């Protein structure tokens, strides 16, 4: 018996969520009194996972997987879930992992619960808490199958150091051609920009910015904070900003440590997508904006005055650090 985690990486480097799922997996392994095994694909420095509790790292290097392939990745996870006799498999909630997890669940005939925000509250029956209704509720959910898959919601458990002495085992796999029925043709990524999924801080702006020409200060504020930029739905619908920046119920979910909303009134659909963020700051000239009810800190004021001042003061603050 073991607990298996898949530690997701991009360009050979672990995502932060990889450390979070290893931290989580280690605690589950302790609850079950068993060991933790991590699986990685095309990662050069696997030893990093020892800090968070992985006693064994199975490192797969495969030249066929220079680009992501959901089916091949799921084959790899299945193979080692079986060889390691894993009863619990812990995954993160990245876009790629959400692509893989359902395939693994079918292969292992495992109950899969996504958006999990806490450790199992009970081992028998195996009960975990997940987010439902777009962050408007939680459901304590029992998994009754022999094998169980837990999808940990981003930034919900945190990264906890738990150093162990571990081993890395290099393994090769043979992937059948049938795993490659979907082929990657081209990847387009804005280089050098912090992505919304990876960002600790997200700076988001809405219609209160009056027009796309005024986004310079939003981008500058984001640059000062090392933040990703985002926008409300009307802004992306109006074409002021690309769709990839739309956050909210039908856009991208945000679960950052700090979310700064500028000129966004805070429609219920927007809040559903962003309220998993830990600290929310709202800057809005309308004191009646519903977002103030959901925020931790607020400034009632004109963004065109507040934001430049905030940039100036933050720069000074960062320099003084």
């Amino acid at each position, binding site marked *: 018996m073991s607990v298996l985690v898949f530690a997701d990486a991009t360009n050979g480097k672990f995502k932060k969520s990889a450390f979070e799922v290893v931290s989580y997996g280690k605690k589950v392994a302790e609850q079950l009194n068993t060991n933790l095994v991590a699986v990685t694909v095309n990662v050069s420095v696997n030893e990093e996972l020892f800090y968070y509790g992985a006693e064994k790292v199975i490192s797969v290097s495969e030249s066929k997987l220079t680009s992501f392939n959901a089916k091949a990745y799921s084959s790899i996870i299945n193979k080692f879930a079986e060889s390691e006799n894993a009863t619990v498999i812990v995954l993160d909630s990245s876009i790629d992992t959400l692509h893989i997890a359902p395939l693994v669940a079918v292969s292992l005939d495992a109950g899969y619960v996504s958006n999990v925000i806490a450790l199992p509250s009970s081992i028998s029956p195996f009960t975990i808490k997940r987010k439902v209704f777009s962050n408007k509720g939680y*459901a304590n959910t029992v998994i009754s199958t022999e094998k169980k898959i837990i999808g940990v919601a981003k930034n919900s458990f945190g990264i906890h150091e738990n150093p162990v002495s571990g081993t890395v085992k290099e393994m090769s796999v043979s992937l059948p051609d049938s795993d490659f029925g979907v082929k990657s043709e081209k990847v387009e990524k804005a280089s050098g920009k912090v992505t919304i999924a990876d960002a600790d801080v997200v700076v988001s702006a809405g219609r209160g910015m009056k027009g796309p020409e005024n986004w310079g200060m939003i981008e500058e504020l984001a640059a000062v904070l090392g933040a990703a930029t985002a926008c409300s739905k009307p802004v992306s619908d109006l074409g002021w900003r690309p769709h990839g920046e739309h956050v909210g119920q039908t856009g991208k979910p945000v679960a950052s440590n*700090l979310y700064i909303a500028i000129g966004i009134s805070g429609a219920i659909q927007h809040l559903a997508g962003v309220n998993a963020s830990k600290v929310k700051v709202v800057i809005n000239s309308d004191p009646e904006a519903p977002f103030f009810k959901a925020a931790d800190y607020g400034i009632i004021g004109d963004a065109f005055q507040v934001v430049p001042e*905030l940039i100036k003061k933050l720069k000074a603050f960062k320099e003084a650090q």
Partner: protein
Amino acid sequence: MKILVCISHVPDTTSKINFVENDTKFDMNGIQFVINPYDEFCLTRAMWFKEKQGATITVLNVGNTTTESTLRKALAIGADDAIRVNLEPKDGLSVAKEIAAIVKNGNYDLVLAGRESIDYNGGMVPGMVASLVDYHFVNGCVDIEVEGNSVKLVREIDGGNETLSSTLPMVVAGQKGIVEEKDLRIPNMRGIMMARQKPLQVVEPITSKNATEVQSYQKPLPKGAVKLVNADDIDGLINLLHNEAKVI
């Protein structure tokens, strides 16, 4: 091309969420149900296939009789026929098994479903269906074109997009971008009248037991009041974010 669009029947996005019966059931009192927004994007894309490339569209829901109004709405938008699997959905894997049985039976070329439903947010059913019927699968799709048997798709990735190629049969989980919000259709009177005549078949479930089950619900703890900072006290805000919230 035979297209199956999976339709979830979900509370409207503005719904207030409450739980009843000792927090074991979702309170449906006063809730307006709609087509899951992600599924609606997929249904609209299916309509374009139908109008430009001569596809047929079946819409499918796994649910009890109350979901038929949502299926009728999908028919009014333009789907040709509907299937309801008579099962109260409780778990992603068992719902996927029901859908997979319909897909196998109907030999669909393309199965479209929203990336997730906005009620339980599982985000797992489309991939599970693909795996169960051994169709190719793309998640988070924001563009799809089909020429004969070959399919070109774009999916969203962290910080960008990936262009993919594959072949039918496929399961594709879509989201906004597969069509735009402005392209969504409101059923017109003629559509609503015609929808009444269109076949809606009720199928009994094949199912097996649930892999997962909700034991109880909780609402988030009420949030403390917002701390307002004066617009000319930016230093005060920075101080709070640094020393109190510890996020900068």
